[in-house]
């Protein structure tokens, strides 16, 4: 699709698995090009030799391929027309609808000046106690689920998205199975939320390297709605481990020295650039990112979850509580770093202490259980922690329970009162006097 007067280069000097080089002049770094119609991006310029990374791979590219430079870096046309639409990684519609009109913006734009950010302070209610009570989410936060591939993270994420009262939900799918893609589409359409959804999708059927564009596409759209329209935007990114895999493929093909777990040395910065797009803007709009990082065998020391953990504001783990047979948000390993910005101020005063006391007692129950499994006698206290833990897991933590925060707190007080003495909960006396049931 060459336009008139566009210069066509055909002198390919080198082809590797992922890149090809051509002799050309006056080319900008990061610029897009097409090589025999395939989209490519400039990754290296030495003198008049320009090296491009071809997203779909170089299979079948001949040495006389036609290279056309587009004079711009990857971009997205932003506007209200994006709402309710489904796109591929390049931002082209995949739902049969028309190409949206709008202002064209380069993706992966500049960072927010840190002094222009506002401190996140608005609670996002999800009805799930493992989140609202123990790890409260705040708008402008970035937080991933750390989950094994068999865990129901997509379901939990869809629930969170629908209950979160966001103005827009932007779904960035990377290496997602077609089944999961259809799952999200169905859930959102059944909830009547399709007009709030924008989706950028790279499924397992698409070339892996293409998915490198997905987060930037999703976040460019998010910045439009959050900054220009002052909307509350929730961005769902799943699965960031697939994104990192694509990074490692590219860096490997570009002969870079790998660091830990074959990941590129720049993994931390690459991931941070995405996650740090989450922000509370001064004019009221916000971008909140809920992502998924799949683990292999629960290993969080792998480079991807490890670097992610240092970037994001906490992480959520799912686990099955074997005593009650339900999936819960693990109270021990999960953490929301921004929770103290809302707990006890946007929620009731007793929130922080109730949360800590319950988690501590739940931990005591886990110790009691270990003792029991090792065949030791349990004390009266041990037995009481165990029965508390059962109530706590089944009626508060389980992800199928939907409560508001006050109900969660009242129920927790009830279970604390049922099973313990006030001196055993280690809380401020004023609170115990007021709420003990």
């Amino acid at each position: 699709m060459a336009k008139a007067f566009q210069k066509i280069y055909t002198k390919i000097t080198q082809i590797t698995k992922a890149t090809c080089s051509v002799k050309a002049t006056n080319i900008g770094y990061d610029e897009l090009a097409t090589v025999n119609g395939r989209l490519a991006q400039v990754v290296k310029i030495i003198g008049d030799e320009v090296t491009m990374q071809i997203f779909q791979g170089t299979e079948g590219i001949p040495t006389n391929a036609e290279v056309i430079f587009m004079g711009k870096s990857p971009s997205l046309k932003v506007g209200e027309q994006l709402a309710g639409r489904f796109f591929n990684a390049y931002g082209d519609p995949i739902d049969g609808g028309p190409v949206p009109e709008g202002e064209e913006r380069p993706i992966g734009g500049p960072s927010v000046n840190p002094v222009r950010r506002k401190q996140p302070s608005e609670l996002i209610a999800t009805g799930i106690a493992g989140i609202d009570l123990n790890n409260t989410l705040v708008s402008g936060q970035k937080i991933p689920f750390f989950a094994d591939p068999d865990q129901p993270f997509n379901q939990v994420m869809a629930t969170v998205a629908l209950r979160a009262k966001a103005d827009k939900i932007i779904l960035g799918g990377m290496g997602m199975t077609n089944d999961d893609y259809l799952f999200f589409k169905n859930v959102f359409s059944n909830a009547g939320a399709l007009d709030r959804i924008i989706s950028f999708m790279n499924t397992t059927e698409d070339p892996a390297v293409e998915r490198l564009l997905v987060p930037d596409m999703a976040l460019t759209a998010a910045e439009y709605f959050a900054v220009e329209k002052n909307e509350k935007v929730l961005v769902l990114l799943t699965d960031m481990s697939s994104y990192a895999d694509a990074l490692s493929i590219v860096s490997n093909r570009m002969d870079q020295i790998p660091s830990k777990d074959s990941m590129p040395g720049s993994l931390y910065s690459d991931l941070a650039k995405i996650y740090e797009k989450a922000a509370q803007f001064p004019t009221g709009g916000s971008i909140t990112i809920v992502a998924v990082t799949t683990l292999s065998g629960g290993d969080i020391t792998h480079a991807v979850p490890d670097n992610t953990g240092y970037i994001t504001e906490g992480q959520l783990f799912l686990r099955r509580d074997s005593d009650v047979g339900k999936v819960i948000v693990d109270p021990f390993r999960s953490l929301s770093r921004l929770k103290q910005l809302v707990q006890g101020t946007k929620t009731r005063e007793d929130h922080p202490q109730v949360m800590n006391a319950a988690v501590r007692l739940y931990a005591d129950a886990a110790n009691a259980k270990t003792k029991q499994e090792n065949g030791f006698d349990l004390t009266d206290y041990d037995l009481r922690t165990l029965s508390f833990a059962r109530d706590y897991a089944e009626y508060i933590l389980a992800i199928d329970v939907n409560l508001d925060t006050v109900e969660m707190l009242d129920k927790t007080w009830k279970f604390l009162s049922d099973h313990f003495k006030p001196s055993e909960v280690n809380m401020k006396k004023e609170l115990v006097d007021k709420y003990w049931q």
Partner: protein
Amino acid sequence: MLTKGIVRGIISNLVIVEVDGPVAQNEIAYINLEGVRLMSEVIKVVGKNVYVQVFESTRGLKVDAEVEFQGHMLEVVLGPGLLERNLDGLENDLDKMEGVFLKRGEYTFPLDEEKLWRFKPIAGPGDTVTGGSWLGEVDENFQPHKIMLPFVMKEEYRLKSIVEEGAYNIYKTIAVVEDQNGKETEINMIQRWPVKMPLTTYKEKPRPYKLLETGVRSIDTLNPIVEGGTGFIPGAFGTGKTVLQHAISKQAEADIVIIAACGERANEVVEIFTEFPELIDPHTGRKLMERTIIVANTSNMPVAAREASVYTAMSIGEYYRSMGLKVLLMADSTSRWAQALREMSNRLEELPGPDAFPMDLSAIISNFYGRAGHVILNNGEEGSITFIGTVSPAGGNLKEPVTENTKKVARCFYALEQDRADKKRYPAINPIESYSKYIEYPEFEEEISKQISDDWTEKVNEAKTRLLRGKEISEQINILGDDGVPVEYHITYWKSELIDFIVLQQDAFDEIDSVTPMERQKHILDMVTEVCRTEFEFDNFNKVADYFKELINIGRQMNYAEFKSEKFNDYYRQLQELVSQKSIN
């Protein structure tokens, strides 16, 4: 004549420039990208080709772009008005930048160019002065900010004239000095210093010995840091590094606090921006922000500037130390800085060291920590930079290059432990693994005995021994069961828990508990030591646990109560009664 060049190659933020004249390693150059000037630094020279790392995104940059070299290395601007500033890693004033998003090539001056400062001369005409000599003083947020002869003027000069006391802006000539050949130089309140060079205008650097109070009990009581000391905090994510670091920077008894947010989360910096202007410095009663400088290069800001940010922060620290002030420098996190070095070393295709970090990582880290310290200035006054860096070990594994190399140079080690964090025992500083080398300094022991009491060190060591013993017993109980060990073991274990809950654990989000002055720390340690030295007798281990839980509960209520308030005294009486009930002496 400054050297010029043309861009010949671009690989991400590494740019190859062909030059027409001499360039120096680490020299600063500006690349012209269609009118936008991108700042860069020379990192390698091969013949006519110079490799520069660009501090900004190179998107859209083309071959043949023009480059201007500046003839100097990366410098900081030093002068009154740095306090309260929010700077980026290259010392640009972030507040002066327009718009919500950072723009490429926008560089802003870090000082207020118009503000009038009340200048009082210190030196007089005829005095012999050299770089770092105090010429006069202005009041910067209640700190005596010394106007010094620029550090780069290393010769001896004669002060020819100095202005009278009065209000001047930073550009006003406040003094004229004359070198041996009679050449005159005009001095104003601004000077510049290359950040990678240590500022060594002092007479000597003795061993530090004076406690730097942080209000964090597991640091001050157990493993104290000193004025001019170095420490580091390694910890996996989620172990409370940031909360601890913020607590230290809020509470430490320092004149100046510099926070280098190096490659970390932007929202954490926002928290400082938002809270510090509201919070009160517990030592002076003034706004915390008034003594604070933030150097923010968050994780999404350009990687090359991240490396510069720690040097920028250190140079500013050295500037204030030369005024005889107590500076606390916090860097979060030095691992991100090391990663920035790694990314560039990788792009330069250098042979990698362990974990793909550059081979000279250990030298870089130790040189940097070496810039901290307590110094005696040429005029006999004392100043200090206390440096605390956090380390983010990959996978929480302390056997990785950044942690290991830092351990070789930092004298205090605050190991944050996942297990403690999981159990919500905050701050999650492992009391057994952590250490402070300063406790072993005789100078320190002498000073602390004078400051607190003769038996302080003894009591601290006793508490440490009890914690260790408690840990051993808890392991035995795990193997043998509660019944498998004698009741006395349970008593010893619970005594260690008492220390853990009342001395070590501290609620960083409670107004009172979050900061404990030394007087109160002494009270707590004395009280806990007394309980631990008491002999108890119990029929069975269940009663031990019940009893100590009650003690712990009272002790914690005390920690939440205002020191020596009625409530506090009341709990203290309850605790003493409870102890005397079960005591067998």
